[in-house]
């Protein structure tokens, strides 16, 4: 049993790997080797930075086709994190418009500039810090996690999923109800960083490791 963290050159994979190692005795592998990725029992698709760079690196490392195939095959659980969630959708408006993997219908949008809150305070972008996630549909990955629990976010763009059935959690920020947890079949993806979200984050990772869709 191996959990492969897909290393296409973007993102801080060490944090994810360390957190997974903390919740499982299974082998955690940070890899870009197609055979290892295919052979793994579970996959983590991380992502940080600009989506143009993430998609670009996925293409450059020739992993895009493999990731698309694995998503369609639905053969093993996959957890997308941060830009790894965003890339699952059709298109992002970041970097002037970037086509993504198109596994789920919907798009990725910017929070906007010069935002103010209800009391007139300046709302910062990126949306950085601990925010509440309202659970939208039941899912095994929510086991042991309270509805409304806080997770750690850092992002300026957010997912707007087109299908209600694909939305598993939402967070309010800057007047937007962001679809911060999405999934379908063997795929579950979160905008926040479970590997940095203390107890609830580790619980979610443990749920992922035990998930048998």
């Amino acid at each position, binding site marked *: 049993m191996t959990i492969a963290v897909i290393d296409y050159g973007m993102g801080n994979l*060490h*944090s994810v790997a360390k957190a997974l190692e903390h919740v499982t005795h299974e082998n955690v592998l940070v890899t870009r080797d197609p055979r290892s990725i295919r052979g793994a029992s579970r996959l983590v698709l991380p992502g940080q930075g600009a989506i143009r760079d993430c998609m670009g690196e996925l293409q450059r490392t020739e992993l895009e086709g493999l990731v698309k195939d694995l998503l369609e095959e639905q053969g093993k659980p996959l957890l997308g994190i941060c830009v790894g969630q965003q890339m699952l959708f059709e298109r992002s408006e970041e970097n002037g418009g970037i086509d993504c993997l198109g596994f789920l219908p919907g798009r990725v949008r910017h929070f906007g500039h010069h935002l103010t809150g209800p009391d007139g305070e*300046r709302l910062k972008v*990126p949306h*950085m810090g601990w925010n509440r996630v309202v659970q939208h549909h039941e899912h095994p990955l929510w086991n042991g996690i309270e509805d409304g629990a806080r997770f750690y976010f850092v992002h300026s763009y957010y997912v707007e999923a087109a299908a209600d059935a694909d939305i598993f959690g939402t967070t309010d920020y800057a007047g937007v109800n962001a679809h911060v947890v999405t999934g379908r079949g063997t795929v579950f993806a979160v905008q926040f960083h479970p*590997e940095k979200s203390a107890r609830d984050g580790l619980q979610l990772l443990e749920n992922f490791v035990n998930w048998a869709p």
Partner: protein
Amino acid sequence: MSLAKRIIPCLDVDAGRVVKGVNFVGIRDAGDPVEIAKRYNQQGADEITFLDITASHEDRDTTVEMVERIAGEVFIPLTVGGGIRRCDDIRTMLNAGADKISINTAAVTNPDFVREAAERFGSQCIVVAIDAKRVSADGELPRWEIFTHGGRRPTGLDAVEWARKMVDYGAGELLLTSMDRDGTKAGFDLGVTRAISDAVEVPVIASGGVGNLDHLVAGVKDGGADAVLAASIFHFGEYTIPDAKRYMAEHGIEMRL
């Protein structure tokens, strides 16, 4: 609004020990960084900042090892700063398990380094530390300047302009320390905190001068800070993180309790 304001305990580490200076001189030992980080994590700290204040060459490996050990046990965001001058330094610290990197002096001596770092690693992990000191006299229009070398060396740079520039260059967050207040326990310099927080779109962490819990409240309410950083009030047991969070929540600030 449900995004919580953050409390960030800061570990100033010298040769593998947590210390805290008063105005950056006169140092008091507060213990082992890994043990302290674990304690703060258990108490519900929202992040941890690790500042390597010696940053001498020999101690570099010790720092990397400490960061690795903390990152292996503490699953909240970890910012590492002190002596970060090249992209290789950033890569080393990210590989050791840091989530964000704080750049201070190198941003002043070579602003393009911030741009390069943000392009290479993403703005989300680049924090620019701004050490500001008030240079206007009482009664004058307030003005703050950037100082380096622990507050000893003036640069002539206006702090608010500098903050804007660093955000343009790709800083994802600013760690603002008032050098007049650091270690004094007299409270944040709310003027510079408000001026910079209003001037930029990215989150601002207020630092320097926390002596009691009212100072934390003021940093958010009057200073407009998104996060508050403190060291000695937590290290020496005057207050715990839950004390601080409860107090701030009682004053109407959204906190992660």
